[in-house]
C-alpha cells in the first residue's frame, strides 16, 4: 500500500463510514440528521445489492439450484462474514463455495456446484497460453533418453483446476443451463456411483470441464503439484497394480494432451 499524507481525521471518518456501510445495526454518528440516515440507507442498499448481483453473475447455476430465497440468504451471509477487501469485484465471489459448504451441510452437491462455477469463472479470464499437442510432445520426446520420461514434469494451462467430488455435478451443470428454470420440489439425487474428480481448464476462449475417475484425478493432482511422470506412475501402481497402471498412465497423458490441458513439458 502506498502511504498517503497523514490525514488522520479523514481516515477515521472513512473507517467509520465503512463500518456504517457494513453493519446496519451500528449507531449513526451523533452529528448526523435523519437526512444523513436516509442517505446512508441508500449506500447500504447499493452495497448489498451490488455484491449479491455480482455473486449471482458468477454463481448463477448455484442460485437456481438452491432457489432465490436460499441464495439471497447465503449471499448475505457471505457478504457479512467475508466483506470484500480487493479492488476487483471478482474477488468478492472468492470463497463463496466455502460459505455454501458451511450453510448447505445436508446438500454437499451445492458447494461442489459452486466450486465448479468459480473455477469456470477463473479459467475464463486466466492468462492466455497455447496447449501442447501430441505432435509437440513427440518432437520434444524424440530427444528423450529412457530416464527422461521418468523425470518428465508437466506444466498445465493457466486456469486449470480440479476438485474431488462425490456428485455428478456435470449433469447438474447441464440441467441448470441458461434456458433452465429455478428448481422447485424434491431435489433428485446426483450422488456419483464412485469418487470422481472434476477438472476445469480453458479451450481457446471457452472454459470447459470433465469428470475423471479417482485414480486419474489423483494422478493429475500429483502432476499439477510438480511430481515427475515416474513418481506419478509409481503412485498409480500402488493404486491400480502394475499392469493397469502402465496402460492407464499412457492413456491419461494422451487424454490430457488431446484435451489441451498441458502447456509444456520439462525433464
Amino acid at each position, binding site marked *: *500500500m*502506498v*502511504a*498517503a*499524507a497523514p*490525514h*488522520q*481525521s*479523514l*481516515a477515521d*471518518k*472513512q*473507517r467509520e*463510514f*465503512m463500518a456504517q*456501510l*457494513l453493519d446496519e445495526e451500528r449507531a449513526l454518528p451523533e*452529528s*448526523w440528521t435523519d*437526512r*444523513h440516515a*436516509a*442517505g*446512508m440507507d*441508500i*449506500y447500504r442498499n*447499493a*452495497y448489498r445489492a*451490488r*455484491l449479491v448481483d*455480482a455473486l449471482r453473475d458468477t454463481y448463477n447455476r448455484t442460485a437456481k439450484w438452491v432457489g432465490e430465497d436460499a441464495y439471497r440468504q447465503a449471499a448475505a451471509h457471505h457478504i457479512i462474514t467475508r*466483506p*470484500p*477487501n*480487493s*479492488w*476487483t*469485484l471478482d474477488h*468478492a465471489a472468492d470463497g463463496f463455495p466455502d460459505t455454501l459448504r458451511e450453510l448447505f451441510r445436508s446438500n454437499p452437491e451445492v458447494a461442489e456446484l459452486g466450486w465448479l462455477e468459480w473455477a469456470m469463472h477463473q*479459467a*475464463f*479470464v*486466466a*492468462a*492466455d*497460453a497455447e496447449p501442447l499437442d501430441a505432435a509437440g510432445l513427440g518432437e520434444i520426446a524424440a530427444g528423450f533418453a529412457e530416464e527422461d520420461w521418468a523425470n518428465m514434469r508437466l506444466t498445465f494451462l*493457466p486456469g486449470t483446476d480440479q476438485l474431488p467430488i462425490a456428485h455428478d455435478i456435470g449433469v447438474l451443470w447441464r440441467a441448470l443451463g441458461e434456458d433452465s428454470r429455478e428448481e422447485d420440489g424434491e431435489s433428485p439425487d446426483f450422488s456419483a456411483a464412485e469418487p470422481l474428480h472434476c477438472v476445469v481448464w*480453458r479451450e481457446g*476462449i471457452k472454459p470447459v470441464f470433465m469428470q475423471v475417475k479417482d485414480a486419474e484425478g489423483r494422478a493429475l493432482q500429483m502432476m499439477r503439484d510438480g511430481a515427475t511422470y515416474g513418481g506419478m506412475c509409481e503412485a498409480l501402481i500402488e493404486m491400480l497394480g502394475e499392469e493397469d497402471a502402465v496402460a492407464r498412465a499412457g492413456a491419461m497423458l494422451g487424454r490430457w494432451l488431446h484435451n489441451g490441458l498441458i502447456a509444456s513439458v520439462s525433464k
Partner: protein
Amino acid sequence: MALSGSLIDNPLTGDPFSGFGLGLRRAHYADFLESDVAVDFVEIISENYMVEGGNPLRVLEQVRAKMPVIMHGVSMSIGSADGLDRDYLAKLKALADRIEPLWVSDHLCWTRTSAHNSHDLLPMPYTHDALDLVCDNIDHAQNVLGRTMLFENPSSYMTFPEDEMSEWEFIAAMAMRTRCYLLLDVNNIYVSAHNHGFSATDYLDGLPLDRVRQVHLAGHTEGTIKIDTHDQPVCDGVWDLYAKAMQRLGPVATMIERDDRIPPLPELLVELDRAAQIAEAARQPVAA
C-alpha cells in the same frame, strides 16, 4: 515526471478530441465485432479488462483496432485517506500501455479503506484537508500512469456536516492544483442538485469548463432522493442541462452510459443521436 496533455488533445492542432460514443458492454460485443457501429469511440470499465487473459481482452483488442477507446475506472479510490492501491495502479497502467486509450478516467470519490472495499462510489467531505489528500493522490496516480487523467464529478446521496466548500469549488481547486482534466457527468449534477438543493446552473458556472474533455449522460431512478442507476434512458431534465452545458463548453467527447437493463444497441444510438443534435444546436449562434 512531465505529464503530457497531448495524450488527450490532438498533438498537431491542440484541439480536444470530440465525438459521440457509447460504453462497451458485454451485451453489445457481437455488434461491435461483427459490424461497423456508428460511434466515434467506446468507453470501457477499466476493471472489467484488468484480467490475465481470455475473451474480454480479446474482444477489447479487436474493438480497439476499429476505434479509439477510453478507459473509465471505478476502483482507483482517489479520495481514500489510506492511500492508493499499488497493485491496482500497476494493473491499470499495464492495461493502458496495452490498449493506448484516448485517456484514463475515474471518479472523485473513495471506495475503500485499507481493510475493506465497498465497490461503491462513496462521497467525499468537501474540506481543505480532503482537497489536499485528493490532490496528493491525483499527483501520485498521474505520475505512476505517466498520463494526465480525467476525474468525474460524482452523484451523491448525503453531504457532511464538516463541509467547507461546495462540490464545484472543490473540483475547481482540484483541477487547478493537479492540472487534471474533468469528466462532466451531467446526470450526476442533475441528481446531486436535486438531492442537496443546489442550482445545477451555479454548478456549471463554478467549474473550470476549459478543463472538461468528456461528458457523460445517463438515466437515474426518481424518488425523494434521486439515485444514479444508469438503468433507463436520459430524462428531459438531463437533456436540458446537457444543452446548457454544451452552450458553455467547447468541443468535447460525449457518451451515453447504460449499465443495467441494457437495451439493443440501436436504442442507444438513437439517444446518442439526440445528444449530437443538442450539441450541434448549442454551437449555433443565438438569434438576436
